[in-house]
């Protein structure tokens, strides 16, 4: 079975990748990929009191979500959303575990509220006033495909416009040694059920497929294989090249997702 959706907007932020325009030229091979620390903008969408409480993944998720909705020229409050990530705010998790290992066990209430996996989705809804349903998934290294499938299924079945946001960022030590996610990478897609004048491409996805696509550029392939959200890169590359083609994306250990990309010229 196949599910389909049209891409109306794209957001990307990662090491050496500041926005879709820049990422698009890198993925098209028009400019070299130069890895540099991810620059996360302040979450200006949030009220000042909330802004101070947010960590890296919230900033990352909000930044790519805002890029994608701006690119699609849609009002963020109108969209349902699907967020998917392998982990949450690594720094926050580390601080909580450290507090619990100390004799006093003084846990910060803000750190605890921010520890929920759906914190970025919660902040996004508060920032934009989006009251439409939002869900937050995790499938470890397969979190991108889990999010993509859920988003495309919602587009197909419920005929709703969906904002898909995937993101993952590093843990500090000692967790980093156990889960070495490099830096921060996030991507967002605005997906719609019908073709619109501004549609960039049509996606048709099915579960399964042989030979997972890897990236030829070593720096980008290293990012793809180490940051779960960056498993979106082969799909973003197909969108950047704007040619009819298909890509096979890495999903769970024993499965993959095939996506046929057809540009809307």
């Amino acid at each position, binding site marked *: 079975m196949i599910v389909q959706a049209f891409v109306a907007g794209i957001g990307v932020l990662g090491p050496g990748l500041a926005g879709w325009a820049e990422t698009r030229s890198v993925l098209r091979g028009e400019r070299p990929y130069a890895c540099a620390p991810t620059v996360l903008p302040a979450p200006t969408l949030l009220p000042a009191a909330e802004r101070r409480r947010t960590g890296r993944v919230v900033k990352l998720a909000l930044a790519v979500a805002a890029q994608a909705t701006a690119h699609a020229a849609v009002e963020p409050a109108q969209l349902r959303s699907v967020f998917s990530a392998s982990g949450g705010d690594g720094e926050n998790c580390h601080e909580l575990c450290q507090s619990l290992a100390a004799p006093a066990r003084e*846990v910060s209430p803000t750190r*605890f509220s921010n520890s929920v996996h759906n914190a970025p989705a919660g902040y996004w809804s*508060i920032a*934009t006033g989006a009251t439409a*349903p939002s*869900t937050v998934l*995790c*499938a470890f290294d397969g979190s991108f495909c889990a999010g993509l499938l859920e988003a495309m*299924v919602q587009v197909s079945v419920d005929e709703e416009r969906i904002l898909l946001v995937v993101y993952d960022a590093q843990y500090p030590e*000692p967790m980093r040694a156990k889960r070495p996610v490099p830096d921060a990478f996030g991507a967002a897609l605005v997906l719609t059920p019908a073709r619109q004048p501004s549609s960039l491409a049509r996606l048709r996805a099915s579960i399964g497929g042989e030979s997972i696509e890897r990236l030829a550029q070593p720096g980008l392939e290293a990012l793809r294989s180490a940051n779960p959200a960056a498993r979106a890169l082969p799909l973003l590359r197909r969108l950047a090249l704007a040619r009819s083609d298909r890509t096979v994306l890495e999903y769970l250990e024993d499965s993959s997702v095939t996506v046929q990309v057809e540009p809307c010229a």
Partner: protein
Amino acid sequence: MKPLVLKAFTATSCIGRGLGQTLESLHAERSGLSRCRFETADLDTHVGEVAGVDAQELPARLGRFDCRNNRLAELGLQQDGFAAAVEEAASRLGTKRVGVFLGTSTAGILQTELAYRRRDPESGALPESFDYAATHNPFSAADYVRRRLRLEGPAAVVSCACASSAKVFGAARRMIEAGLIDAALVGGIDSLCLTTLYGFHSLQLCSTSPCRPFDAARDGISIGEAAAFVLLERVGGRVCGDDVLLLGVGESNDAYHMSAPHPEGQGARRAMEAALRDAGLEPAAIDYINLHGTGTPSNDRSESQAVTGVFGALTPCSSTKGATGHTLGAAGALEAVISALALRHALVPAGVNTLHVDETLTAHYLKHRRSAPLARVLSNSFGFGGTNCSLILGRAG
């Protein structure tokens, strides 16, 4: 939505290991809450701890998944022939055609808490034996269950705090409707850990006594733990009167506050209305509401307003959290299973522990169970981040 049938279901919480004990406790209006003696927690609170979790063993091939959360999952899967029912469905439909969608909020984070106490004094490194993917990561819960039952379909954990395992019903029904799968194992698993015990304590949301939802003197939650599972399939040719159907799922966002509900329950109201629309039902068609009813002053006030706003003040409702505790990411699935038992056994569950219903709350709260035939039940689950989900279950006949 097209209704789905609950082909099999089971629940394990502090009120029972499997459906038989759970039903018995509901009949007896028994609470499973007791003074907190969990691990090294030093807190004046009550918890709903499941007996025997630490003694549960995992199959040797899945040894790396060993942690309290997956032991609880294993204990849950062994009840009521549930594992066998899933294996039967997988052999009938194909292992790739059965999805796994589970809700959890903390998965096996207890393992990480323990590992942080055993850091290398010089390097600070976590112990060699700590396995991040198989215990700490939220997906570990679904990964364990999927491997345990040798399923090969799509899988994900929904982690939306305390609405997680209600929302999995939505994820599963959409994927079945899209034709990507033919059946789904849905459910929720959350187990006691210090993060939630000390975390809710830091927010001053834990009661010192067993929680009393909707009571005038309610003063917070009691944290529980549970594993609850449901096997969902399309309604085939044969349904019998005792079969329970998933009729509707409604989801919404408060867009209000990270850890407090909207004061008038606007988000909760939209979730209930969306579930009714999804099921094509009028509010009068609902015979009982299993409330989110955590026992915090603010949750119960806003939920009561939302419920009476949609249903008026006559529809009987109760929270079963006085019996089970708040099982967080497992609450949605646990309460869906309790709702299914209510439908099957003509039992309207009591709001255990509640002595004096808060008169300012207008919803029709039941302090004692009733025996009455039920055709359709709505179950509410709300979570941090302002995420809301309502499910509607009904008898097939």
